């Protein structure tokens, strides 16, 4: 048996799902994800399995939420905590509306034969925005991509992060700064865990 502990004070990685006041969290390497308000309902599951079940075995202990009976075979745990007053990033709603608007763009919107962003790309962008809805991440810019898809960029001082959601359902993320140069990697769009890892990596990069 394993017990996962969520530390309310650390606020390291929070991403809400589709605006229904449910948050997906995961624990990994001792980093736990936290709500700042009380939880009404907890659902958890192994993220790699992409399924979750509702459980009742959690308790509040001061600033900690303790989850009991996590199967020992699970390496990383997705926890969904519902709360009636869940805090969301102030930019999330507007950013999601912007991403949805891009569906209306026609093909050749830039005069260079660029494909219009597809529904798949816009939906992926929505997932990415939800995964990045930290309070301490700057508001992203959202724009159509000349490669066919939606581009989401974050910027802090000279640090720049860019995520491209392609029409074919792939996601590539990249970071760039004068000090560290450029790096890019693929993100598995089907796994929340991958999106959360990406969000954490980019948040850490922007804060460094």
């Amino acid at each position, binding site marked *: 048996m394993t017990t996962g502990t969520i530390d309310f004070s650390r606020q390291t990685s929070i991403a809400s799902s589709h605006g229904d006041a449910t948050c997906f969290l995961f624990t990994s390497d001792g980093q736990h994800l936290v709500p700042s308000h009380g939880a009404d309902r907890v659902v958890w599951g192994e993220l790699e399995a992409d399924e979750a079940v509702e459980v009742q075995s959690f308790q509040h202990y001061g600033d900690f939420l303790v989850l009991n009976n996590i199967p020992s075979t699970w390496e990383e745990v997705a926890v969904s905590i519902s709360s009636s007053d869940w805090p969301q990033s102030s930019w999330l709603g507007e950013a999601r509306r912007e991403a949805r608007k891009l569906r209306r*763009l026609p093909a*050749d*919107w*830039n*005069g*260079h034969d*660029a494909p219009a962003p597809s529904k798949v790309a816009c939906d992926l962008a929505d997932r990415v925005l939800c995964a990045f809805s930290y309070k301490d991440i700057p508001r992203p*810019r959202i*724009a*159509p*991509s*000349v*490669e066919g898809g939606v*581009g989401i*960029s974050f910027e802090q001082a000279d640090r*720049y992060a*860019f995520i*491209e959601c*392609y029409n074919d359902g*792939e996601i*590539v993320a*990249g*970071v*760039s700064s*004068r000090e560290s140069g*450029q*790096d*890019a*990697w*693929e993100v598995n769009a089907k796994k929340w865990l991958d999106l959360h890892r990406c969000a954490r990596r980019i948040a850490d990069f922007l804060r460094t």
Partner: protein
Amino acid sequence: MSSTGWQLLLRKLWISYCRFVPWCLLRCDRPWRMYRRGRDPVQEFGAKERLYLRVSRADLASVRPDGTADANFIKFPDQSFNRSGFSEPIDALIPDPAVERSKRWYSLGVVEFPVAAIPPEVTSRQAVPCKVRVVHDPYDINFAHSETRVYFQGQRLSGAGTDELTTKVERMKWRLRIRQDARFKTVLAPLR
């Protein structure tokens, strides 16, 4: 008429002036400088030469006051530009009679950036660098036309060939390098 309508009308009049007034006796539909007139391509780009890129309003929104821009509006490869050595920024908006949708170019904008900001290499799947070159590729009605092209072991890559030999990750790094080095300047703002 709205102010945007007036702006569009003025721009069309200005382009009409460029197209017809000085050259009407020669039956030209664009400035004389744009015609190839038998000239050979010039593959040497000056150190300070700039590239003019036609952009939409959505693109331009990503250009910051310091000239940096998002990585999402440079295509890889085969991105068309006009080179400053043989053209003026407005030339990028003059429609091509052979392309029906080009009438819409009137309302787009133009940004410029230095040719030196184009990264010369991108890594292939085999970890061998592919060369990226800005090639002067003149059209009969647009001598300044240039584009980025990718070469692997001397062979030009395009379309599916580019996808086979380069990954989206490496292409993203290439675009991030442009984003890091290029300073974009808006020379013509797009109209609403």
